[in-house]
């Protein structure tokens, strides 16, 4: 397959590495258990999960890009504040965009859109990667982390929405005799599901804590 050939050569470049660390090795949720507040809260519906994932990806990628572009101009003492200003700019963009084009999703997500600002993934990527690396690689790193996070949101929603509401993306999925597991739509179900995912992933990856 010619496509795979291209990928193999591409595999040794720094760009590829920057993109992929966030997708698997340093996956924000499994390895670092970061940014799970909004993840648990909004994944009871697939459309919310997608909106949240894409929003976070956009914010992570562009805030990493901008932090990296200004990395020589940001004084070390106030860097946290600088990250926050940059991040909140993009979060405001996402919030306005959702309000304008997807008012229903914006309504159900409520405060969680604004809370992307305090999602530790964004701050973490800025501090760990973007402040030390060039704009292009930081952008890819942010993109990779955002996509890894989106993937996790989809994994959560794909179980919670059918079990909790009997639907997927708002369309009925389960047979008529199905009784909804209400617990999956609220907090306890989210906690149990993430616990189970962490267990499975960490057993496979052999990354354990003491």
């Amino acid at each position, binding site marked *: 397959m010619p496509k795979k050939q291209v990928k193999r050569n591409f595999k040794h470049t720094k760009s590829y590495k920057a993109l992929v660390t966030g997708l698997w090795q340093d996956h924000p949720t499994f390895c670092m*258990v*970061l*940014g*799970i*507040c*909004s993840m*648990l*809260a909004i994944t009871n519906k697939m459309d919310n999960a997608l909106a949240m994932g894409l929003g976070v990806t956009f914010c992570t990628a562009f805030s990493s890009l901008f932090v990296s572009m200004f990395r020589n101009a940001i004084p070390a003492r106030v860097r*946290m*504040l600088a990250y*926050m*200003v940059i991040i*909140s*700019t993009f*979060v*405001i963009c996402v*919030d*306005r965009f959702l309000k304008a084009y997807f008012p229903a999703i914006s309504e159900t997500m*409520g*405060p969680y859109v*604004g*809370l992307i*600002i*305090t*999602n*530790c993934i964004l*701050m973490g990527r800025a501090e760990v990667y973007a402040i030390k690396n060039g704009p292009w690689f930081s952008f890819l790193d942010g993109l990779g982390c955002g996509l890894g996070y989106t993937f996790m949101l989809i994994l959560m929603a794909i179980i919670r929405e059918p079990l909790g509401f009997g639907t997927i993306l708002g369309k009925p999925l389960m047979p008529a005799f199905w009784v909804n597991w209400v617990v999956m739509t*609220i*907090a*306890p*179900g*989210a*906690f*149990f599901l*993430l*616990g189970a995912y*962490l*267990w*499975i*992933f*960490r*057993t496979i990856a052999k990354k*354990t*804590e*003491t």
Partner: protein
Amino acid sequence: MSTANPFLLLLASIFTQNIALVYILGMCPFIVISKNFKTAVGMGVSVIFVVTLTAMINWPIYYKILVPLKVEILSFMIFIIVIAATVQLLEMLIEKFFPPLQASFGIFLPLITVNCIVLAVCIFMVLKQYNFIQTVFYSLGTSAGWALAIVLMAAIKEKLLLVGDIPKGLRGAGITMIIAGFMAFAFMGFAGMIPLQ
């Protein structure tokens, strides 16, 4: 404007609307800092203090400055800057005037800036249109509820060491999630106790 009774609001935000176990916010420190009972208490107290203080600062800023100027769009950015600045200021004040507190209290302050519940309280206060008194009680209750949850979690996790033998992959964050799930069930028992949506 919301017409909720401030005192009921306080109780509701601690028990029926617990921010950690119903809204699932403030999870990063909830997992990381809940290993030790004493540390959890220190973190809980610092959060109560910072959340109440920042909500009291942000309310007038939103309603007296942003709304008259019609720049509510900037509210997220202003809120987070105010939070970061308040935390930084508190840190310096404690270092200067109350050095004994530094060891038990000061180390948590930098972590609080990125704790989602500080920002969440400010956003909820705007969404639910609370007045100033309600905001004070709401922020106090919310942060106290979070502190209660993290202290309970730390106490359970300390006892867990005595039980031993958790599957390897489940140790750390995994088991914390499972315990949090059971705690969330327990807190669901409070639902309907307080007549407030």
